[in-house]
């Protein structure tokens, strides 16, 4: 029987940990060196729930740098580079799909 205290995180493929940087809200990803990176390509990609939980613990323990950390599924390019797997994450990664100051 599973203890109610045991945390669960189910992932079904390559996953990264993402958050918003505290100082300016910019989108960041947890990198291999344990720091927050500004590009998804530098993110630490994990494939098991245990690894994802471990990274999430690191992220949640670092609320002075980044907030609201969560696991996000990614797709891997042929060279193994992570790409956003959903429209939401594409927009977070690349910015709004509309031009700024269109009324100028």
């Amino acid at each position: 029987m599973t203890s109610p205290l045991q945390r669960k995180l189910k992932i079904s493929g390559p996953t990264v940990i993402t958050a918003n940087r505290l100082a300016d809200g910019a989108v960041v990803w947890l990198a291999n060196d344990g720091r927050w990176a500004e590009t998804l390509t530098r993110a630490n990609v994990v494939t098991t729930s245990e690894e994802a939980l471990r990274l999430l613990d690191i992220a949640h323990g670092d609320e002075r740098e980044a907030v609201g950390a969560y696991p996000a599924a990614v797709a891997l390019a042929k060279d193994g580079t992570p790409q956003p797997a959903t429209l939401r994450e594409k927009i977070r990664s690349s910015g709004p799909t509309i031009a700024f100051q269109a009324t100028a």
Partner: protein
Amino acid sequence: MYIHDEFDRTFLKERVAEFRDQVARRLSGELTEEEFKMLRLMNGVYLQLHAYMLRVCIPYGTLASKQLRALARVARRYDKGYGHFTTRQNIQFNWIKLAELPDAMAELAEVGIHGIQTSGNCIRNTTTDAFAGAAPDEIEDPRLYAEVIRQWSTLHPEFTYLPRKFKIAISAATHDRAAIRVHDVGLRLHKKDGRTGFEVMVGGGLGRTPYIGQTIREFLPKEDLLTYLEAILRTYNLGGRRDNIYKARIKILVHDLGAEAFGKLVEEEWAKIKDGALKLDEAGLAAIRAHFHTPDLPALPEKPAVLADALKDPAFARWHAQSVTAHKVPGHAIVTLSLKPVGGPPGDCTADQMDAIADLADAYSHGEVRVAHEQNLVFPHVRQQDLPALWGKLEALGVATPNVGLVTDIISCPGLDYCALANTRSIPIAQQITERFADPERIADIGLLHVNISGCINACGHHHVGHIGILGVEKKDQEFFQITLGGKGNAKARLGELIGPAIPETEVVDVVERLVDTYLSLRTGPGETFIAAVERLGVEPFKDSAYAPR
């Protein structure tokens, strides 16, 4: 406009200093995110997809030119050079850094504006008619009462932690231009037996469970406004659900109890407090009225020669037909500035535009600008003889698109391009529609048509009350959109009817065009508007055309 006194100025300065300290403590790690989140929200600071968003309150949608210039400065110095006007007469800045927020707020406080109570489960900015004080069909300027409510509700200790947010709107005109029936409380100022008072509606709202507000009191004497609101809020605060965020708005309580039973509870509470300290008297109202600077407009000739000449120009005539509204003082006009250019995000305004609009407000509208809930701006007091010159300047600024009230005057939420809650994008749909319907003659022929778009069920784009409503839903990471027809947010408010299954993003503009073409083919004549045709025919013929095999 309302002129703040020393009390307001001191309060705002102290509030900025307090927030500056809170930000410093958060950045140093002294405050956790959990501790800080509530504090930032109480100052209108959200964390969205890409950055912090600051929502700035524009009380009852009235801006002095110097306040608009301050918004421009904030957009330029602390954001990316633009802001987004919302359906609640506020403005949002999408790219502000946390560390710079106190400085931005300090600049706004210098001109008496702020983000307090633009978020959180409290009483939000009371909205009203963007034409208030200028419209010929109003019985009294409703902003006086909106200001009374602002003073009462700001930091109200009992109502700072309500079950959910609370929105009040007031209309004092025959035509409801404030969508009062889809607010938690809607107030309609009217006269009865020579006295002024309010029809009080409660439980309206959109979101995932939309309801039209129901009248619980046909006539409330104006001096009882605050005591009655206090009774409503207290009844809601005690009875509203706190166990389920989706069932916590007052509309759910009113629906569950029934409007009559809810009204009875309010009346019982009111009986205890109606003659208390909150009862308004004429001296108190006069003191607040004295803080409003209202221009003394002389009556001038109607349709002066310069205007009559300009109306011979079809382009000017098209703009005049859509953007110029009658004023209560002869020889004057109300001018709506369209923030819906072809291909542009609805409601966006650049810092340069804000500065230029502020200059034009000084030159042509007694330094006053309004924010309309349709996400446009308004010059409330323009001399008719100045309209041709003003039009040229507004055109040069890109805010004279002749589409006010037409199919491209779209209300749209920010959608997934900015919002952390959204399921789909909204703005690109709006842009595509404005591009498809770019021809000004075509949209003038189509006539009055409100298209409202929301990127999720929270309905910030008011899709339920659009003549055509468009709601984004996500299916397996693909954007789909539900279409509703027949909604309206005016005095005869009605929720739109869903016409069928959601359609892919790529088909939305085609479907909107088919709905419009169906209307054009079935209308009795140009005098029958889209919404009138839907009401006469029902949604079936529109549904058939929207889903016809291609």
